[in-house]
């Protein structure tokens, strides 16, 4: 549905997006992940024909953004970072205005407005003035305007930013409910959001794509070495540590805090070795009680930070990004 080839966007002095390429298939939900200023919004603006690309090609639903912008625009629903709302208008008026702009026939407008109000749960505020709505409602009105013409492609720029956790959940559920009939690209810097709603992730950093993968495959990444959390009762920390270090394939044993007064470690295996069965056997043979044994998966957060750090970014910036 969406195809981007060698896309570059230069502003007067800086390069916002540098030679990126990716493809999004029909019905996929793709998370566009990156820090602030990584080039997410610029890429989305190119796809929606708001900005022309400096170099490269982009097409949506088979139409080129430069050659056939009208066809592209008809096939896209777009929620910009700040929802494009007219504060002085009433919700229903605003939605019918957008419906008319998007080329919906006059006789269908009332029906479509009712449908999207229902879908985004804003029916109770349809006769209110947009300027008086809460942020959560505004965001939903923004999504309503994006889906009013039932476009095959939806582009949502940070749909959950600035919302409280409950509202974020609502928006996420709404996006998930739309996934059936729409191809969706959503940008975010909240990692858990990607894990919950997206089938594929594109990580972008300083205008370049650093990873394109499914969420599951990203979790597998960087897990060439296995890390196992072990908790044991019935022995003192020092002996257990010594014993575990002797197990073949173990690279390193690190003591960990344990709340229940047990002895806890994080055991890191050598690359390519499978250490869990041997660990269990060793502990049981020694006559101790094994209370916990589980692999520690690398969180998406870590993967994200690793990938973006690999690009030699300023570490302080990365920390800022993860704090959000």
């Amino acid at each position, binding site marked *: 549905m969406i195809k981007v080839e060698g896309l570059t966007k230069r502003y007067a002095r800086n390069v916002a997006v540098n030679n990126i390429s990716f493809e999004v298939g029909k019905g996929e939900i793709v998370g566009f992940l990156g820090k602030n200023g990584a080039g997410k919004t610029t890429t989305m603006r190119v796809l929606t024909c708001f*900005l022309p690309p400096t170099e490269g090609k982009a097409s949506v639903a088979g139409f080129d953004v430069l050659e056939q912008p009208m066809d592209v*625009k008809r096939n*896209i629903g777009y929620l*910009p970072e*700040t929802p*494009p709302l*007219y*504060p002085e208008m009433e919700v229903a008026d605003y939605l019918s205005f*957008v419906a008319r702009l998007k080329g919906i026939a006059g006789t269908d407008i009332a029906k479509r407005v009712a449908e999207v109000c229902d879908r985004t749960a804003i029916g109770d505020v349809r006769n209110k003035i947009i300027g008086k709505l809460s942020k959560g409602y505004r965001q939903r009105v923004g999504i309503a305007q994006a889906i009013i013409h039932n476009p095959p492609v939806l582009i949502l720029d940070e749909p959950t930013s600035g919302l409280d956790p409950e509202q974020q959940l609502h928006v996420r559920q709404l996006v998930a409910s739309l996934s059936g009939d729409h191809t969706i690209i959503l940008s975010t810097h909240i990692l858990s959001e990607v894990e919950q709603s997206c089938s594929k992730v594109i990580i972008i950093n300083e205008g370049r794509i650093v990873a394109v993968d499914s969420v599951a495959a990203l979790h597998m990444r960087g897990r060439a070495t296995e890390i196992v959390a072990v908790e044991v009762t019935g022995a003192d920390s020092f002996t257990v540590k010594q014993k575990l270090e002797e197990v073949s394939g173990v690279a390193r044993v690190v003591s960990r805090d344990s709340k229940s007064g047990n002895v806890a470690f994080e055991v890191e295996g050598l690359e390519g070795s499978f250490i869990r069965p041997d660990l269990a056997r060793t502990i049981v043979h020694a006559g101790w009680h094994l209370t916990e044994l589980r692999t520690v998966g690398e969180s998406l957060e870590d993967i994200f930070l690793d990938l973006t750090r690999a690009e030699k970014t300023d570490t302080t910036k990365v920390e800022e990004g993860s704090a959000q």
Partner: protein
Amino acid sequence: MRNVLTICSKEIKSYFVSPIAYLLLGLFGLISGYFFYSATAFFVMSGMRQQMMGSQQAMSVNEYVIAPLLGNSSVVGLFLIPLISMRLFAEEMRSGTIELLLTSPVRDWEIVLGKWAGAMAMYLCVLGISVLNIATLSIWGSPDWRPILTGILGLTLQGGCLLAIGTFISTTTRNQIIAGGATFAVSLLLWVLSWVTSYNEAPWAQVIAYLAIPTHYEPFAKGVLDTKDLIYYLSVIFFGLFMTKRSLESLRWRS
């Protein structure tokens, strides 16, 4: 065309749900009401004086009341037009709603024409107050309608020009005050350009005077429809809207 109407009617609604429309109508009603009252009172007083002096020639309502009234309306328009046009694009750029317009399947010229037409409709509402004032004259007298109609046409065209220029200026900034101020400055300049011919008759002065807006309004006020003036007004409107469209296109490269 449907898109033009959609945008135009949205603009008109925007004026009337905000205080701008009422402020403009109120201010203009007050000022033009005062002008109308003064002109009529002066006309009545000097008419009585002439009768007492035994003059045979009747005074013309057109000359003493309507022409000055329309002339004043055009000057007041100079002040009101920037207030009408300043928000057209500046507000959309500030609030980000421009992204909705530019990513909808609407052509740039449809946006420009719709916005300008909406501003024109607002301007005509304001002008309607003058027309109402003048219409009351027909209760007691029988003014000549031809110069009134051409005068109103002239005011409409003149407003169209200034609004087209104001629309263009509004696309160049996201600050409404700057847009309004700059539009006022440009309009005023186009106004006073006509002064050059009062001290210089050289060809270049004639050219500059031709560019001035009031030069072309005078024939309309006298009831004369000259193609030369029509062409001037229509070409300024076209030029202003063309520049607006260009500026809107360049917005994509600038932002």
